[in-house]
């Protein structure tokens, strides 16, 4: 029996791609004949990915697992295979977030939603990375078994040396550093991070800086609007880093005093776990899968008021005991997301579904 993971885009730089590679390694280690098939690859993933024609030689005894992350022709090819079928569901951003900024991306998301609905009676099992994602699939009419297993993350990688250049440039300033990591897209609500930072800087720490770490397109109207907003708020210490390497990400977490997340749509939110792994206290807005990923740790805010958020950040930075308690909670949560723990859980689920 061949176990084939299919992914529309395989990149070693993003959460879905990393998850696919980690599952492949896990399956190989467990003795399965595992393969990865990618619609296309970017940034040289350290695994040999086969092209889509590999799917044509599979039979009924084989299992194909689709990483569902976007609208793609790969999803349709998957639907037509004669094999048993599984899905790892990473969620699709609701198209409404992009409607006013990027019609093309909105259409891709809409296609993704339609294809997710189309596949509801064509898969035998699903692994969702959060209960939020499971609920999303149940709303879409999925009746097959849906197991929930968090993303398999190689947390050991986070002990690597951070980028010396970033540390050299940013580690010797007076004020606090607020950091958020994620692609600059509307559903992550960068404007709310910026608004909270503006209040924090005005009332609590005039030397504070905000680092927005993640890829952006400088021609994107959303980015344009964010820049205008920053100008309107007269902020000078906001830095968009653009796409950065892994060691640079580590460095930004190293200089961070608080990780501030105001995102309103996340299927899991890997940066929260990264912040936990690097002992950065998290302040986050309770939306989508974020409360589930934090699972009670960090500081989870039920309302999105920049004044309150800024005040809470100040408390967290001033009150040593609060900070220590938050970090202790995060470390405890992190122990549940360790590679070995999740790998055991995932392997149990996959064995049951593949061999059952």
């Amino acid at each position, binding site marked *: 029996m061949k176990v084939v993971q299919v992914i529309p885009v395989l990149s070693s730089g993003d959460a879905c791609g990393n998850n696919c590679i980690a599952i492949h390694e896990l399956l190989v280690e467990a003795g399965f004949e595992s393969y990865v098939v990618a619609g296309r690859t970017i940034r040289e993933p350290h695994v040999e990915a086969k092209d889509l024609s590999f799917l044509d030689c599979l039979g009924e005894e084989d299992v194909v697992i689709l990483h569902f992350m976007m609208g793609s022709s790969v999803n349709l090819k998957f639907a037509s295979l004669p094999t048993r079928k599984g899905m790892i569901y990473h969620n699709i951003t609701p198209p409404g977030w992009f409607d006013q900024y990027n019609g093309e991306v909105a259409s891709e998301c809409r296609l993704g939603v339609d294809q997710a609905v189309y596949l509801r009676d064509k898969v035998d099992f699903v692994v969702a990375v959060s209960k939020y994602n499971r609920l999303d699939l149940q709303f879409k009419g999925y009746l097959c078994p849906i197991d929930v297993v968090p993303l398999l993350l190689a947390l050991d990688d986070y002990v690597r040396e951070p980028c010396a250049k970033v540390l050299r440039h940013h580690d010797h300033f007076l004020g606090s550093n607020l950091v958020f990591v994620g692609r600059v897209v509307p559903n992550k609500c960068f404007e709310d991070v910026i608004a909270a930072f503006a*209040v924090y800087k005005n009332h609590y720490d005039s030397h504070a800086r905000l680092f927005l770490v993640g890829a952006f397109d*400088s021609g994107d109207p959303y980015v344009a609007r964010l820049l205008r*907003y920053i100008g309107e708020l007269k902020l000078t210490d906001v830095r968009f880093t653009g796409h950065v390497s892994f060691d640079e990400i580590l460095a930004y977490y190293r200089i961070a005093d608080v990780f501030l997340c105001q995102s309103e749509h996340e299927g899991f939110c890997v940066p929260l776990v990264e912040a936990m792994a690097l002992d950065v206290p998290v302040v986050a807005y309770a939306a989508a899968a974020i409360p589930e990923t934090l*699972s009670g*740790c960090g500081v989870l805010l039920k309302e999105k008021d920049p*004044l*309150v958020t800024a*005040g809470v950040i100040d408390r967290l930075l001033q009150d040593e005991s609060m900070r220590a*308690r938050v970090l202790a909670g995060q470390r405890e949560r992190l122990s549940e997301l360790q590679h070995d723990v999740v790998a055991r859980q995932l392997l149990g689920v996959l064995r049951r579904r593949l061999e059952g």
Partner: protein
Amino acid sequence: MSSTSASVDVESIVLAVKEDIARNCKAEQIPLFDEMEAGEVLGSSDQNMLFNRIYFSDTFDDAIEAEHLDYYHPLQGSSVAVFIKRVARKLCRGVVEPLCDRQSVHNVSSDALIRQLYFRVNSQDLTIDALARRIELLEIENDRLRRREKDCR
């Protein structure tokens, strides 16, 4: 669920923060993001936020330092290991050396292009500054002439 979560009572912290805001009259009107126009931004000064000159030069220096790829490196290890490595290197030479050379040529060309663009950007910045100063002077002169015209009437 983490058991320590109960020890950080977020609700009461939020309440205390709200009291603090009310007590110290920290409330302020923050401009709404929805009021911002999403029009053209390219070429405006807003774009400067996306560019950090010092960081750029530093990254560029790193890139220049790593631009040349050497095919030959001193071989280390025991005499047997060195011999095996030398044989392996000779066998691979036909494939690896041209790749290294081509990559080095590409890197050097990219370096030259970036350098030219950077100089161009810098010179344009200087021109923009000079033009801005000229506009300022012309506006002063314009005001002076307007006042003079008014006085004459």
